[in-house]
């Protein structure tokens, strides 16, 4: 039976960490039984591919592996120097440790969740005083990550690799290819967004991850544009979500109705026994927010908002051609 991957990785890590001189691939093949098997039963190629993948995996796990010319047999050698791999002294008190434990639990995305618990395990092994019993807090912040594009984009942004993907713009009938230099990811109101440089459009763009269809492919080559020091994804997204409005709408709302709209009001004053008049910030998407409440809301102005809401209502009432 083939030797399990975790055992093979562990053996490679121990060999590289235990040596004071670089070990050549040939030496590692002698020491790590799984490589010996792959080489004997497979081929030189099979072993090489396996070794390269394993080395990448260990690097992902944080191991710094140096490549050196000075192996005994004159070939390229590898080693993980102790001084470069040691966790620096870190003094966390019990309260700080408890706070980190809560934080490490928030990831719902498998890879990030694994990485966060891996970080805690390293800290715990280094002597950080985490409480043994898992305290079940009554507060559960969660960072979602259900979008398939999340993981490849995160890696691409980290390694500064350009990517391509198919993207369906809001309201577009189909997806179209985009070529992007990914800068930053931002999670807002439970949804992930990517900010980056759109190569075809020659400027910065924000993409919503749930609208990326198909695979994210990473491209060879470097970024062509500079990565800005600070990327405010949230401000861009908030503008589309109707925040940062500059105009004010005047609407009437039936007493007791449409609480979420009332919350946004700048001013509320009674009109008569049944209706209030409200001033509400007028930004993108307000028409849909108002139409939702049907006969409980009347738009007084501005005129374009009023026309928009009437138009929406006519469509639902079946009085307009529905564009389908």
């Amino acid at each position: 039976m083939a030797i399990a991957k975790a055992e093979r990785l562990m053996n490679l890590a121990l060999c590289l960490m235990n040596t004071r001189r670089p070990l050549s691939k040939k030496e590692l093949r002698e020491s790590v039984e799984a490589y010996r098997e792959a080489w004997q039963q497979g081929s030189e190629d099979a072993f090489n591919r396996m070794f390269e993948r394993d080395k990448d995996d260990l690097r992902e796990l944080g191991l710094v592996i140096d490549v050196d010319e000075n192996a005994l047999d004159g070939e390229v050698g590898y080693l993980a120097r102790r001084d470069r791999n040691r966790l620096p002294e870190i003094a966390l008190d019990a309260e700080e440790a408890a706070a980190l434990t809560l934080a490490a639990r928030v990831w719902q995305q498998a890879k990030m969740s694994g990485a966060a618990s891996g970080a805690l395990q390293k800290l715990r092994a280094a002597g950080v005083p985490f409480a043994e019993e898992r305290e079940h807090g009554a507060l559960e912040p969660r960072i979602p990550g259900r979008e398939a594009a999340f993981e490849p984009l995160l890696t691409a942004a980290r390694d500064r690799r350009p990517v391509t993907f198919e993207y369906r713009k809001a309201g577009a009938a189909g997806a179209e290819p985009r070529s992007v230099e990914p800068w930053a990811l931002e999670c807002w109101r439970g949804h992930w967004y990517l900010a980056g440089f759109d190569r075809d459009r020659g400027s910065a763009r924000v993409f919503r991850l749930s609208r990326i269809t198909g695979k994210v492919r990473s491209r060879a080559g470097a970024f062509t544009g500079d990565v800005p020091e600070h990327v405010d994804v949230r401000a861009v997204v908030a503008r589309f979500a109707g925040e940062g409005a500059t105009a004010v709408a005047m609407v009437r709302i039936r007493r007791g109705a449409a609480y979420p709209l009332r919350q946004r009001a700048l001013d509320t004053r009674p009109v008569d026994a049944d209706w209030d008049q409200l001033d509400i910030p007028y930004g993108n998407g307000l028409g849909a927010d108002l139409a939702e409440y049907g006969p409980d809301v009347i738009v007084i102005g501005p005129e374009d908002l009023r026309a928009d809401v009437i138009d929406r209502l006519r469509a639902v009432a079946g009085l307009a051609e529905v564009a389908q």
Partner: protein
Amino acid sequence: MSNAIDQTRRMLSLVTYLRERPGAEVAEVARAFGITERELIGDLNVLPMCGTSFRGGDLLDIDTDGERIWWHNVDDVAQPLRLAADEATALLVAARAVAGLPGLRERDRQALTRAVAKIEDAAGESAESAARIGVTFEAEGTVFADIDRALSEGRLIWLRYWSHGRGELTEREVDPIRLVTEGHTYLEGWCRTSEDRRTFRLDRIAEIKVLDEPANPPRLQPRDLSAGLVAPAADDPQVVVEVGPGGRWVAEYYTHDSAEELPDGGLRITLRSAEPSGLRTLALRLGRDGRITAPPQLAEQARTAALAALEHYRDGQVRTT
């Protein structure tokens, strides 16, 4: 079952941990690493096969009797390892997000902020990519603080709550169970008024009182939230919505059973709802971007509501009667 990467990561930390603790108890180590005893025993079966030379017999001599763990040839290779870029990123992004959670107890926020600074320090350049990811939680500060207090003191809560499904403010008594934040913050509790478990979005709470009466929620299995916070029940009535390209967002915001592509770039979305009449608002919101096709009564309700709303604007007048 964990994957090979996570298992390797864990075993590397495990040897460092065991080095300092001869005769460590299996149960305690499993708890410390957040794994089951079975998983730990699995790791302990692999470790004696690991070392610097299989043929030379240079292997970790770690064994267990099922209760305690012994390492007979401890060496100094098991030093604490530096944090990987992804590990530092995952921890720092999460810690910063939680520290920015409005309503978090000040003491916890300060502890977290101190911890973040120390981790950044220890992680060095591994911490750099954490700056490329941001997470913002929305939580409504004052309501949050009241619920947090009710939870820690174990007290009943009275709410005036905007029911989106019914389109009205309702009054309820709730035994609080926990606060869950994913985008928005939600209170999960036992609603005494409806005698059922309910989830309340904090920004829809119009008024809150922490009552003197002690909370006494029935013992419930923690809900599995992996499919989303608002999960419909299997026997909830089915609703079919057909949307054009401009209404595709429905599939992103509503947990649904299926979303079938339509030739015009739209979707036919089948979902279930405990209160289908609440979806009348969805039909009104969609306007020309979509319509409800089943059940027919629901489509009719939306049409009637739209006609009633249009009455207000007849002849270019505003009518409030």
